[in-house]
């Protein structure tokens, strides 16, 4: 049974002092709630939509068409020797997941304000549930990628086994960013406006339409500060047999963990006052 199940002990509600305290047991007890909220969002999104889940296929394919015309035909961008449509498809699918998940997580607390002000449960679950529904789209686009790979004769190597690792990395990046932004959004609704701009910039700073190798060597360490550079490169490496992620990926990993730590700390510090300010 959930809620810290401990019938014997007292549950205390007192002013919280600053230290980071993550109650993993309680989160685990409430794990189903995150699933239910994610499921709710998926169901609601595709209710009364004729194409339904078909949108998850159609959207990146349309993106591939546009990107191929603009960046390949007009700008003649290199793609590490991979067929450009396949190259950009992977970039787009991963990017679409991340940007969608960050947006959803950012808005999650405010759009669930009625829950926040009326019921107790670990608030962390709300932004967590926000990064889950996009995984369905990601999963749906994988078979499409298989077809594309067959068409362009691209064969992944053994590296394909590391796919779960890269998916986990994408979730982690989206969750860390979404967690911080969602807590900020409770206090400052400006975040909701700024997120569009932020994601646009982030897109251009991520190797979606171009490869990391197109970035001058001197800029590589700085470029790696963007965690998405390593994540997208990782996906291309494992799915398409692109170049393996370089040592700078460690910078990306570090940045992600620091971001996650910051987000968790800020979230925990502010979470029990959400109901007062939301």
């Amino acid at each position, binding site marked *: *049974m*959930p*809620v810290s*199940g401990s*019938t*014997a*002990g*007292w*549950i*205390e*509600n*007192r*002013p*919280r002092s600053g230290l980071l305290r993550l109650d993993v047991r309680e989160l685990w007890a*409430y794990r*189903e*709630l995150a699933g*239910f*909220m994610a*499921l*709710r969002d998926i*169901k*609601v999104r595709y*209710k*009364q939509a004729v194409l339904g889940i078909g949108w998850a296929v159609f959207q990146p394919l349309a993106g591939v068409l546009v990107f191929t015309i603009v960046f390949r035909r007009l700008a003649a961008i290199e793609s590490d020797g991979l067929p450009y449509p396949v190259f950009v498809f992977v970039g787009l699918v991963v990017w679409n997941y991340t940007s969608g998940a960050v947006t959803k997580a950012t808005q999650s607390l405010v759009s*669930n304000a*009625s*829950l*926040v*002000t*009326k*019921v*107790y*449960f670990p608030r962390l679950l709300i932004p967590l549930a926000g990064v889950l529904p996009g995984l369905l789209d990601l999963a749906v686009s994988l078979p499409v990628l298989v077809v594309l790979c067959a068409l362009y004769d691209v064969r992944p190597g053994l590296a394909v086994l590391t796919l779960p690792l890269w998916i986990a990395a994408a979730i982690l990046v989206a969750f860390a960013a979404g967690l911080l932004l969602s807590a900020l959004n*409770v*206090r*400052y*609704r*400006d975040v909701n406006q700024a997120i569009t701009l932020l994601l646009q910039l982030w897109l251009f700073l991520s190797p979606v339409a171009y490869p990391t190798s197109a970035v001058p060597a001197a800029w590589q360490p700085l470029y790696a500060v963007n965690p998405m550079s390593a994540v997208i490169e990782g996906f291309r490496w494992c799915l398409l047999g692109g170049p393996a992620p370089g040592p700078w990926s460690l910078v990306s990993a570090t940045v992600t963990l620091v971001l996650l730590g910051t987000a968790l700390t800020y979230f925990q510090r502010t979470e*029990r*006052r959400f*109901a*007062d*300010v939301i």
Partner: protein
Amino acid sequence: MTAQHAIEVDRVSKRYRLGQYQSTGSLGEAAAAGLHRLRHRRRPEEIWSLRDVSFSVEEGRALGIIGRNGAGKSTLLKILGRITEPTAGVARTRGRVAALLEVGTGFHGELTGRENLFLNGAILGMSRRAMALRFDEIVSFAGVERFIDTPVKRYSSGMYLRLAFSIAAHIEPDILVVDEVLAVGDAEFQAKCVGRMHIAEREGRTVVFVSHNLDAVMQLCTEAIWLERGAVTAVGSTESVVDAYVATATSEDRGSSPLVHSEDVTLHGVRLVDESGQTTRSLRRDRSFSIEVRYTIHEKVPALDMSVLVFNSAGTRVLDEAWSDTNGSRPDRPGTYTVRVSVPPALNVGDYRVGIWAGTAYEMLLFEPAAASFRLEGSTKGRPERAVALFLPWQVVDEQARSSAVDADTGRGPDQPNDHVDPRDDADTPNGPGVARQSRGSR
């Protein structure tokens, strides 16, 4: 620590910051607030919603919390339910707490009843398995079997409410914290809610119940707390606390301080006026009297409605007269008004309490369950239990005296009606009506 306590609240205080610079929150406003503070060297307006509140509840007891709007009741519940944290002090609870501050929290219109049931259960801390076990019971309690796979946006508001409450009623926490859930729904539904909470109490759960409905509190709770301006004014048996509460509400020396205050409407006071125009709290039961209400409208409230409620000492709502029951025009513009409702002699001798409700068809603006009290004096004619005493006139409409063989008026023999008895409509026996109609007006 005493082992048998389920709830311990120890010097809990809660401060809210008020003012335009704090309420909505955006970067620009935060900057503006910072500047404002620098320039005026003044801290934002603070309000202590709770101040040094301490009490404890033993396991399996039901505690009622009463108090006027803005007394801090909801804040206290939110702290008990860990929805917000206190500014100072500590609230301890033992076991699983379910705070029902409203029913149907998290319901989504696009989802079916079934989907909402599991989602809502998860929100209230129930596992999927636990909900599956209770599924049939919840659905049949709500009476929505046929519609369980229909999106709840197609539900009538009654069905929606019943499903929501049914879920809430079946989550079986150790501590049940309930706020005003009973304010919604019809009388039958409210009775169902109170019944369900009785069961919870009998099952050994601890119940904390906040309500404007003093009668429900008296029915359900053995102990009560009275909160006034964030502080505990009285603790003890429900009866004594409610009595004290009602007494202050009706004491004459309130001066000019308003009874209840909301954003749009302030209720200043309620007086009882007898036939000769005297203000009194002791009236004759065989004379009509007026209930006079003085209130101020601050903002124009289109279609503002008001209702005068009268409760007898048993807590029964004997009157609930809404202005909108009649067709007269009602003021809705800003201003201070004194209005009167005239009550004909109908109520039995006894002590009564007057409640005032103001609102629109869509929302309640204020409700004061104990705005005034009065006593009706006179003779009960030996039957003090009845709520209404109208002294209705009686009359004889048919007489079949044993001594006379034939009734002079109808020309029928005495046994005739009995031969004619039809069990299906004995109210309308063929020989009766004509006579009854003729003679009714004769007295």
